[in-house]
């Protein structure tokens, strides 16, 4: 199976490290960005297959990134999974309406992340 490309956009080094560790056993090539703006630049260079997206970040937050991504050429192809501590209805609804495919509330564990990612491995 050819490996998929996964972009982690999160300002927390801890999250990026944990996700990298969890993705080790999965066929994913991992890239990192510490805010939405850097994430967009990476997407413009090459669209990833999956994006794990934090909500609260400096410079450009997750929902701004998502709207901007979905409105650009080829931006509808990556599966976007929000990974955030925001757990209220309004945030979840906004993410879904903004075009998120999945939504994970932090703290997450390996099994949770794998269960959300596994349908995307076979995409």
């Amino acid at each position, binding site marked *: 199976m050819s490996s998929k490309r996964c972009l982690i956009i999160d300002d*927390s080094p801890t999250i990026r490290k944990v996700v990298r560790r969890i993705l080790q056993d999965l066929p994913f090539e991992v890239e990192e960005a510490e805010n939405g703006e850097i994430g967009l630049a990476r997407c413009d260079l090459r669209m990833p297959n999956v994006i794990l997206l934090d909500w609260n970040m400096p410079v450009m937050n997750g929902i701004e990134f998502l709207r901007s991504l979905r409105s650009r050429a080829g931006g509808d192809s990556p599966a976007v999974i929000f990974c955030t501590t925001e757990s209220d209805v309004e945030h979840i609804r906004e993410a879904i309406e903004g075009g998120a495919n999945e939504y994970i509330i932090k703290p997450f*564990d*390996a099994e949770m992340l794998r269960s959300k990612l596994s349908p995307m491995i076979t995409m």
Partner: protein
Amino acid sequence: MYLEGLTDARSLADAVIATLVQYEIPATPDNYALWYEYHAGHNPDLRRTIDVIVSNGGGFSEGTLHDLYISFFSSVKEEQAVRETSLRVQETLRDVIGIANRARADADQFGATLGGIALADFDNNVNALRELTEHLVREAQAMAGRSRYVGARIRESSDKIEALERNLASALRDATKDGLTGLSNRKSFDTAIRKLAGEAMNSGEDLALLIIDIDHFKAVNDTWGHQVGDAVLCQVATTLEQAVRGEDHAARYGGEEFAILLPRTNATAALAVGENLRHAISRATPQPNLTPLMNPITISVGASCYEPGDPLTEWVGRSDAALYRAKREGRNRVQFA
């Protein structure tokens, strides 16, 4: 579009009630409408939002349910949907009432048949009597069959209503405090551990968990009675609450077990806090209503730190294992895992 037909409406209603019971949601009209929409499936965003909450293991607190209702049922278009929903619910009710009425009609008809027997002249007319008897038996069987069906439906409904009433009662109790000690309860602890672990995962800061058990508590209860046992629980709770910082979260975890979440606390500091608590408990002066003959109250403590990416249950399990080791090694001590 809405599913048409009474059977569909009824199976939807059953699904809604089953969900309310499953997630311990009070059966208010708003909640009913919300879950009716969910099961009817014509609002994909509502469905996906609820699925996100379910798949993340979050429960449906009063606040969450209120937010869902406000978010999805506030516009004019959605008010229309609510009206249509309640129309379907009314139809379902009419259907059930119909079943009950048919049962009454059966009983009336049976009564009329009995009346016919009373009035009939059976002199020398064995055939007429036999005919009537056979008719009577058929009627009785038909009625018994339908009564059983109605009876089963009513029993089923009353079971469901009872379960819903239990939900409502538990929702009305103070949702966050333990009734006896006034500390946070288990439900509140479960919310706090998710929130604090999420923050620790983001910030990379330490987060420790202490699980505390009162030593030989069963003996206290057995020897001095439950009132003394309850007084001990309250005293320990007060001591723990006074000993921790404002940002810490102390809760009654169950029975004679307490749990304390300590943000920005590493392994060394967690052990020190555990030791402080152990001393504070053994120093605490017994209250006047505690008998002077009682052995001093001591606690055993199990501590561990959160590892981002580990399941929360595994983390709690490590504190539990440490507590078990503290007990096994003679109680009145602190262990770390």
